């Protein structure tokens, strides 16, 4: 099995053997990183990063990963200075840029945009977030973090908390958790529950049927992992609807008194107020380590997709 030239658009597209291959390769990359072993696996290859909406970790970790593999990066962050401001279509932009690169990593606020680009170009495309739809590489690095810190497949219990309706990270991660038989429960306000089409799909595929809670208090002593997401102001068409749910959850030291000793808190970041800074210094907080795993995971993906040597 190989992933050469495969597009990474949605968690739903990946099989368990493919995910296992990515985890295995990511572990190898992590070891190389930790030992400071240089690599030129992708020397001569070029990654284009097309970020039509803001990104800190995803774009920079893709760039870091490519540089660490000896490759080069070109691209843009924000559309200012590109022909998009002249009205160029997404498809035309992508079809031009594929002439300059060997792989495209992109983020766009429009749902399905990465699929459209992938169908329009011959180079592999990696979805770094398409609106409220999917963010598969974030979910893969979450899985890498869980595997490295806890080991997957050990009767883990994960509470997915926050904006599950618009949270693309949660939409991707739930597929991988269900794929590995990890027990999940949802914690969200009623208005922000996991979309029915995703819940139905994971039940059909993996037999997974997460329960729903509206209070963190209900699950804090149950969870091995608390995965917290931001309630995203930018996804709400109506600011009043956002105001109704903003600040629904706050993880603080008082809440953590009821947690298991080895429970860990993950967050795709950025956070606003859903995890208090006082939590950062506790052993529960692993969200900064989590972003570290993003580099090795993306090194693994880039190497697998562009077919460079190990």
């Amino acid at each position: 099995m190989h992933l050469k030239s495969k597009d990474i658009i949605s968690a739903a597209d990946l099989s368990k053997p493919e995910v296992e291959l990515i985890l295995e390769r990511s572990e190898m990359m992590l070891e190389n990183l930790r030992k400071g072993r240089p690599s030129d696996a992708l020397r001569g290859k070029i990654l284009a990063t097309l970020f039509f909406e803001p990104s800190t970790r995803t774009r920079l970790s893709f760039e870091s990963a490519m540089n660490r593999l000896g490759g080069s990066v070109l691209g843009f962050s924000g559309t200012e200075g590109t022909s998009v401001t002249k009205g160029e279509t997404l498809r035309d932009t992508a079809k031009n840029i594929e002439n300059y690169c060997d792989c495209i990593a992109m983020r766009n606020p429009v749902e399905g945009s990465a699929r459209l680009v992938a169908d329009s170009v011959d180079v592999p495309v990696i979805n770094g977030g398409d609106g409220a739809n999917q963010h598969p590489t974030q979910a893969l690095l979450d899985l890498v973090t869980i595997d490295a810190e806890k080991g997957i497949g050990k009767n883990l219990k994960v509470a997915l908390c926050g904006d599950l309706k618009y949270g693309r990270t949660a939409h991707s991660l739930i597929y991988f958790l269900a794929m590995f038989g990890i027990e999940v429960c949802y914690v969200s306000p009623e208005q922000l529950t996991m979309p029915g089409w995703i819940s139905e799909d994971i039940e059909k595929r993996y037999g997974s049927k997460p329960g729903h809670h509206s209070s963190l208090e209900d699950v804090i002593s149950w969870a091995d992992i608390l995965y917290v997401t931001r309630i995203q102001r930018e996804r709400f068409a109506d600011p009043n609807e956002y105001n109704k749910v903003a600040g629904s959850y706050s993880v603080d030291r008082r809440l953590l008194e009821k947690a298991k000793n080895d429970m860990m808190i993950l967050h795709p970041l950025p956070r606003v107020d859903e995890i208090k800074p006082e939590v950062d210094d506790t052993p529960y907080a692993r969200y900064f380590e989590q972003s570290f795993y993003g580099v090795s995971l993306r090194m693994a993906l880039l190497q697998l997709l562009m077919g460079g040597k190990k």
Partner: protein
Amino acid sequence: MKDGLKITMINQGTVIDHLPPGSALDITNLMNLDTNEPVIIAMNVESTKQGRKDMIKVEKKLLSKGETDRISLLAPGATINIIENGSVSGKRHVKPPGELKGTALCPNEKCVTNTEDCPTRFLMRNGKYKCYFCERSYAVEEVRLC
């Protein structure tokens, strides 16, 4: 007099039967009809199966796949009869197709098919239409025709 006897027979062409009452005009609008050939529309006629029904008879026409797909969305359960030499030579029940390409709009206004010049595509999954692009699923009756 029975309703059936009021409706003229056709010699060659297609009869679309068992349409929901009141749907015939909408369905006629979906079809590419040759205005030089007879089209017979019957509305609210008696039906032993469904009480009342609409029916369309079109002389010298066979439906394209696109037309059949569109009819299946507006009138799932309709019957299409192929008429040759005044007799029924083929009959099939319309059901929502496994894939819709360019025939329906995605109800998700944030879907790329609603912002870019890009043909829509839906795949039937678990009895619902899943948008190939934005991945949302919709009941058959939620999908709007292009």
